[in-house]
């Protein structure tokens, strides 16, 4: 059980503000999805939580203790690492042994079982793994780490559909058997939606939303029909996306579906529909 508190965290790289005053609390034993476009700050945020990067200002607390240079705290967190942190000639099986040194609760037997299910050759050198198998290797380490917080940074990168499905299933099984806080950053939104409990959206270094999945789905809706009527309806509303085809127009409105005046939509002869998660996130993160 670990609670993560991110307080006013900013990160500057030269002149780029990668994170701007991020405040976020991650509750114990929930599965979070971290969504955002390339370069939005997802990896930077995960790297600051796991002490791979220092924040320019602000702090990260794990169970009330600072995450910076704190071995006691970092032993609770597993963050998917990039390939190049491993020694050049290290084999997969040595990588497994090595990870056990850092994570006292690491389950070697489980790691080998997973390697077997994913058909990962543990005698191979880590540097020779394909993109997909490199993802498989690191996600196995994460699942077997025994850490109470696992940060998955694009865990399914390069994985084929079979392996992605296997990963989602293993993740849920692992989570049920040993509840933990899990953060997953991914671009495959619709695929992961059912696995998640909460969604965090980051845009240009700022958290623009952090809500339970079911609530997110109610945050917007689509009205469509004759374009002048759609315009009339959306005049004083927050429209986050518009598509037109001839006289037909569909507008995505950012307003809670529960507060919608359905009668006025019907009177105008317009159609109302809910928005899919992926569509909503695309609309919210468009520049």
């Amino acid at each position, binding site marked *: 059980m670990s609670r993560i508190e991110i307080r006013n965290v900013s990160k500057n790289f030269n002149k780029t503000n990668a994170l701007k005053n991020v405040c976020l609390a991650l509750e114990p034993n929930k599965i979070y999805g971290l969504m955002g476009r390339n370069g939005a700050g997802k990896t930077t945020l995960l790297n600051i939580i796991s002490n791979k990067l220092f924040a320019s200002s602000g702090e990260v607390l794990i169970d009330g203790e600072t995450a910076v240079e704190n071995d006691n705290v970092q032993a609770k967190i597993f963050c998917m690492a990039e390939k190049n942190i491993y020694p050049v000639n290290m084999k997969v099986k040595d990588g497994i042994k090595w990870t056990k040194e850092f994570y006292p609760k690491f389950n070697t037997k489980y790691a080998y079982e997973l390697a077997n299910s994913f058909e990962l050759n543990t005698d191979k050198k880590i540097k020779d793994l394909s993109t997909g198998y490199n993802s498989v290797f690191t996600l196995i380490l994460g699942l077997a780490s025994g850490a109470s917080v696992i940060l998955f940074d694009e865990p399914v990168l390069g994985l084929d559909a079979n392996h992605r499905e296997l990963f989602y299933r293993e993740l*849920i099984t692992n989570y*049920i058997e040993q509840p933990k806080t899990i953060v997953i950053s991914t671009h495959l939104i619709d695929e992961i939606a*059912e696995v998640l*409990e909460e969604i965090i959206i980051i845009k240009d270094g700022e958290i623009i939303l952090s809500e339970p999945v*079911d609530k997110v789905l109610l945050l917007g809706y689509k009205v469509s029909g004759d374009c002048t009527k759609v315009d009339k309806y959306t005049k004083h509303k927050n429209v986050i996306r518009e598509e037109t085809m001839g006289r037909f127009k569909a507008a995505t409105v950012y307003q809670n579906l529960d507060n919608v005046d359905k009668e006025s939509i019907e009177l105008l002869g317009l159609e109302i529909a*809910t928005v899919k998660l992926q569509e909503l996130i695309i609309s919210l993160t468009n520049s």
Partner: protein
Amino acid sequence: MQLNMSSEKPIFLQFAEELEDNILKGIFEEETQIPSTTEVAIKFKINPATANRGVNVLVDEGIIYKKRGIGMFVSTGARDKIIAKRKNAFYESYILSLLEEAKNLNITKGEIISLIERGCHNEQN
């Protein structure tokens, strides 16, 4: 069981409806045990909290009940309850949308009725 993740309906409601479908079809019989939420969560790769919410909808409606430490069971009379509930929704979800599409296509009331009769006839054969 098939959950449609791209549908706009919340996943927990889809899950609840799937359980209802299986009760209606007699796959889950009254007073028999149904799979646990953890089993279902793993099988369908859904968050256990979501599976729980779906189950709780049916518990609140008295369609299934929980036995502490044992599991979940289909209530007596569950089938009738589901049928009654769905009959109420039938008008809204099927008849109204049928009439709307018929209007778009200029299909008359008489034509709709004869189409329904044709459907019933084919069903019987």
